């Protein structure tokens, strides 16, 4: 079984889908000979040719529109944003055109939007953003954010096969940082299903993406607290059942994300828990998040901006002792 980095797992997932289905093709900037800014599509041009590894002008709104059109005639485009921050340039085409299409006139838009996402790489305000809730708040698109190579491979496959628009978020701090054995021709992993990574009884800790790894690190420092750790894997649709089931068991819950605080998914989880498991709660629903600020460039500031392992430990202890 091959050992794959997070990046290789995504790449491998796309490769297998392109081998299996001729309607799957890639679009984006610099994805051909250069292999993409992060080399996710390295080798694809030689195998699949320039028609299926389509290099685009520097115009996100334009090539997203073209992806929608191609999807209308039966293709399954996978669109790379060089950094996911640039999806803002295509917001109209995604939010107004793609996300309303099935609802308006019954035309599904099977397009996967993907790209490097998130902070912790000293990349500053325009190459570090967490854009997941812009789209979680836009009905008509699924938002997926894996934290392990095997989930990344299974979920990119599920996105490509899905008949609705999917946004697949690849945390770039994970690209070459983690490795895992992932079998060839592995099946897709269902979108919308969270994963209980570790069972526990004192409290539920919910996270996704790169922060999952900080949560695991924090748990390594707290052998005396029994924490149930849940990886959301999908931000929309949220796995409400998994969240509620765990909270009913532990009676306490905290959410950790590097996205900013106001309107972050932690707030939505707090609301779900409030409605669905109010009587079970023995403490406040706690949020460990970034503040409502752009992502700063200087490492000293980014360190303060992002939730740290120490922050997670402190929040966990306070909630456990509540």
């Amino acid at each position: 079984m091959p050992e794959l980095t997070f990046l290789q797992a995504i790449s491998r997932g796309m490769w297998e889908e392109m081998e299996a289905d001729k309607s799957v093709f890639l679009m984006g900037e610099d994805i051909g000979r250069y292999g993409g800014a992060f080399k996710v599509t390295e080798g694809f041009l030689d195998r699949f040719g320039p028609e299926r590894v389509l290099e685009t002008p520097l115009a996100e709104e334009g090539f997203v529109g073209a992806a929608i059109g191609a999807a209308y005639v039966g293709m399954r485009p996978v669109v790379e944003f060089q950094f996911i921050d640039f999806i803002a340039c295509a917001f109209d085409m995604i939010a107004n055109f793609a996300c309303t299409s099935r609802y308006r006139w019954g035309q599904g838009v099977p397009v996967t939007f993907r790209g490097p996402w998130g902070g912790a790489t000293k990349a500053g305000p325009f190459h570090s953003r967490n854009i997941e809730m812009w789209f979680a708040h836009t009905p008509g698109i699924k938002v997926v954010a894996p934290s392990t190579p095997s989930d990344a491979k299974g979920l990119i496959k599920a996105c490509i096969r899905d008949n609705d628009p999917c946004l697949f978020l690849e945390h770039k701090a994970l690209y070459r940082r983690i490795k895992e054995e992932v079998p060839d021709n592995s099946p897709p992993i269902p979108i919308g299903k969270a994963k209980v990574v570790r069972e526990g009884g004192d409290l539920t800790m919910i996270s996704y993406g790169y922060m999952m790894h900080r949560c695991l690190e924090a748990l390594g420092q707290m052998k005396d607290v029994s924490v149930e750790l849940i990886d959301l894997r999908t931000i929309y649709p949220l796995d409400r059942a998994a969240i509620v089931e765990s909270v009913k068991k532990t009676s306490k819950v905290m959410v950790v994300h590097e996205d900013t605080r106001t309107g972050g998914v932690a707030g939505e989880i707090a609301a779900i828990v409030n409605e669905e498991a109010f009587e079970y709660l023995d403490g406040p629903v706690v949020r460990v998040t970034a503040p409502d600020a752009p992502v700063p460039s200087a490492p000293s500031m980014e360190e303060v901006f992002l939730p740290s392992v120490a922050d997670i430990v402190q929040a966990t202890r306070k909630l456990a002792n509540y």
Partner: protein
Amino acid sequence: MKGDAPPRAVQLEMYYYLRLTRALDERAQVLYKQGKVVGGLFSSLGQEAISIGSAFALEKGDYVGPMIRNSGTVLARGHTARDVMSNYLAKATSPTGGKDNSQHFGDIERTGVISCISMLGTLVPVMTGMALGARMKGEKRVAMTYVGDGASSTGDFYEGLNFAAVQRLPVVVIIENNGYAYSTPTSKQSLLRNLADKSKAFGIPGYAGDGNDVLEVHSITKRCVEDAREGKGPQLIEFKTLRMRGHATHDDASYYPPGLLDEWMKKDPIARFEKKLKPTKEEKAAVEERLKTTVDDAVDFAEKSPPPPGENALQGVFEDDSIIQFTPWWKRDA
């Protein structure tokens, strides 16, 4: 850049569709005043020749993305008068089942018509993608769409046409220059006298023509459609016309300079075409009869159709409806 005029039988069909477009428009104005139209009503009065002339230049299997004033295009491409009327009234029987209104509908399989959205210019990249997808499947389909003078200022117009040009895709974009984007005159959109000159930015051919002459519209568009299909890449056409009503029914166009409407009234595309075509008494009577039956039936159908069930609001966001369908806490039994 003119080809042969189509045979008389085709011209008579064009005449019928020009008249049908206007007749439906006029009936819709009445329904609007009766409070029956859902949303705004955007008249195509005076601009019918562009829709009809260009739609008749396409082949079966081609794709077209109409704007809100192109009801003539969707009719000529095979949508029914019932489709148009029931969508204005947002009825259950309408092509969108009441989800969207106005001229926002289509049917890729049956008519090749793509539903537009209110953000203008968006169809230029989308039609480019349809041409791209068709080419990948080995099909020789042309994708045509329209923008107004206003939407020719959008980034989407530039990004879409540029991508189409780089990829040499069979895309035809028609700038329907009707003088005003809502109340803004074209002089505030662009310094160019001919918006067709924007083609130079993409390295593609650009043509300008009289938008109130249906045969000129047809011949220029047909040549462009043929060139696009033969692999000569995207084509840009500007047709000049005037919107003979306000932006929508609520707008009295009081910002038009005095005399402008009178001047353009003389160029009415239907009257002009009728003079050229000279339909016989019998031909005209047949058209009148067909119009009356079709329009009355469409209005009757739309008015008698039920509104869509409210619960349909929760359907069709995703392929899997269960994603958004669940009972909120306050609706459950205690």
